[in-house]
């Protein structure tokens, strides 16, 4: 062997930048992909738990969105005050009340609904056509539909108009003091429970994923030690593990996102009428968005957990 000399370095024919870029890509992504395939066995638990947790997160997210939309819908409905007018109320007084309401800064808009309009509207509400047909005369009163800007001001507007001489003294308005508060209380409770659940889910997701990835890293501690001992820079040691974590997370995200999308679409297609009522605002676009968010969350969860696990492993 004496006299045999290991060749010294020579510069590549191509540009140095190209070589460095190729090496970077290979070190980070090529090695990571190869290593990921090789260690699929030790990564499988992380993949499974992440998929499950991301799926739950996706479904909880869609439910939260539906509840939020429902709350908005309820608020919109509750802030629309129907002021029922006495039959035969002079139009001049109606215009007077109308303009007083429109001038009120708490009011967003006022629409006059005549008795005929009210009847026509009732024809489209289940159950009411029979009632309308049972009577020879039009039983539905004319009304001023007042859109109040803030839900909290509805009571005050009702108090302002309910004793007006042109307002029906028996049923002066649609204002139901407790109804909206009850709905709001239920939705608030659901929101709190939802946030707590999502928080818990997030904590469990990060903990389970970190532990799974930590176990995968631990099983390869010799490999990490060898890489460090031969002088591999930090990024070369950590990078592939982070990319592997990202691959695991993205794959879990794709699985969970696909299932979330599938379930949402099945819901939309299978029970379109009733579904609209139970999950307002959830349509194909939202389902696609939810799937994309779940994939992104998986990517972030996988790579983030890898970074944290690696840091702890290397510090220990």
């Amino acid at each position, binding site marked *: 062997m004496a006299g045999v000399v290991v060749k010294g370095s020579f510069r*590549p024919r191509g540009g140095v930048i190209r070589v460095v870029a190729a090496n970077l890509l290979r070190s980070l992504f090529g090695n990571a992909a190869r290593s990921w395939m090789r260690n699929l066995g030790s990564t499988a638990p992380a993949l499974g738990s992440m998929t499950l947790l991301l799926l739950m997160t996706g479904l909880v997210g869609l439910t939260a969105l539906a509840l939020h939309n429902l709350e908005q819908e309820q608020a919109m409905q509750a802030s629309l005050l129907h002021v029922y007018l006495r039959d035969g109320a002079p139009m001049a007084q109606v215009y007077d009340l109308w303009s007083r309401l429109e001038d009120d800064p708490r009011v967003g808009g006022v629409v006059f609904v005549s008795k005929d309009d009210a009847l026509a509207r009732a024809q489209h509400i289940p159950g009411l056509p029979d009632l309308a047909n049972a009577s020879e005369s039009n039983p539905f009163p004319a009304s001023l539909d007042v859109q109040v800007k803030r839900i909290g001001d509805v009571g005050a507007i009702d108090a302002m108009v309910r004793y007006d001489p042109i307002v029906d003294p028996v049923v002066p308005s649609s204002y139901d003091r407790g109804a909206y508060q009850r709905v709001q209380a239920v939705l608030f409770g659901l929101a709190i429970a939802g946030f707590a659940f999502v928080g818990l889910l997030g904590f469990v997701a990060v903990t389970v994923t970190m532990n799974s990835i930590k176990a995968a890293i631990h099983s390869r501690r010799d490999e990490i030690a*060898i*890489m*460090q001992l*031969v*002088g*591999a820079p930090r990024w070369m040691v950590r990078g592939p593990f982070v990319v592997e974590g990202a691959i695991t997370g993205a794959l879990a995200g794709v699985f969970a996102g696909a299932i979330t999308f599938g379930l949402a679409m099945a819901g939309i297609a299978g029970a379109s009428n009733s579904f609209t009522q139970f999950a307002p605002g959830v349509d194909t676009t939202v389902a696609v968005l939810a799937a994309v968010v779940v994939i992104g969350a998986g990517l972030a969860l996988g790579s983030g957990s890898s970074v944290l696990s690696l840091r702890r492993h290397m510090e220990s």
Partner: protein
Amino acid sequence: MRPQANRHHPPIVELIGVGRAYGSRVAVDDIHVALHPGELTFLVGPSGAGKTTLLKLINREIRPTAGEVWVAGLPAHRLKPSKVAEVRRKVGVVFQDFKLLPALTALENVAFALQASDLRVSRNEARERSLDALEAVGLHDRGSSFPNQLSGGQQQRVAIARAVVAQPPVLIADEPTGNLDQDTALEIMDLFEDIAAWGTAVLVATHNIEIVTRLQRRVVTLVDGRLVRDQPAGQTGRMAWLASS
């Protein structure tokens, strides 16, 4: 002809008053030693004398609790963790248990070390230089073998090829023949002699007294963490520490 150490050159590794303690236990204490380019030095001493600690200090696996460690002009004793890789690129390391990456072939193991030390090395260049290194250790035809397909001696040769492929100025070996039979151990030592002949400072921690006495190279003796003897090449005498091991 035995190559001579480049003693007129400044030392490539210098330990100045180095101490390292693990809690209250002192592993090495007040060590002064310098290694020169082209010098093959044996580090001997009984178990627990501090040989491995000394090697770890040079490779900056650990920091000294006292003194200074200079490696190829770098202050290993005060390097930040983020800069440790710089020292390690100057130091090739050979372990008793080879420490090859099991999922990589012999060629890939060698090439990995080369590209880890220099990203500007292209894939083709890494392959060529790794094949050269494997040829230098007599394994040019085993490049595609995985570590578990190689004998202990062959694995150690791959580890040596990996350690020298980037041509580091320093090579340290911790009991490199500990798992090998005597004939293979002598072959490995021949390789170290050749590597030193290229101008590399080689420090070999070993228990193998037969090899030490046979090669008649510089011998640094550690006992209880203290450097008790530094015998120049050709003057290797009685191994006093043997009585206590």
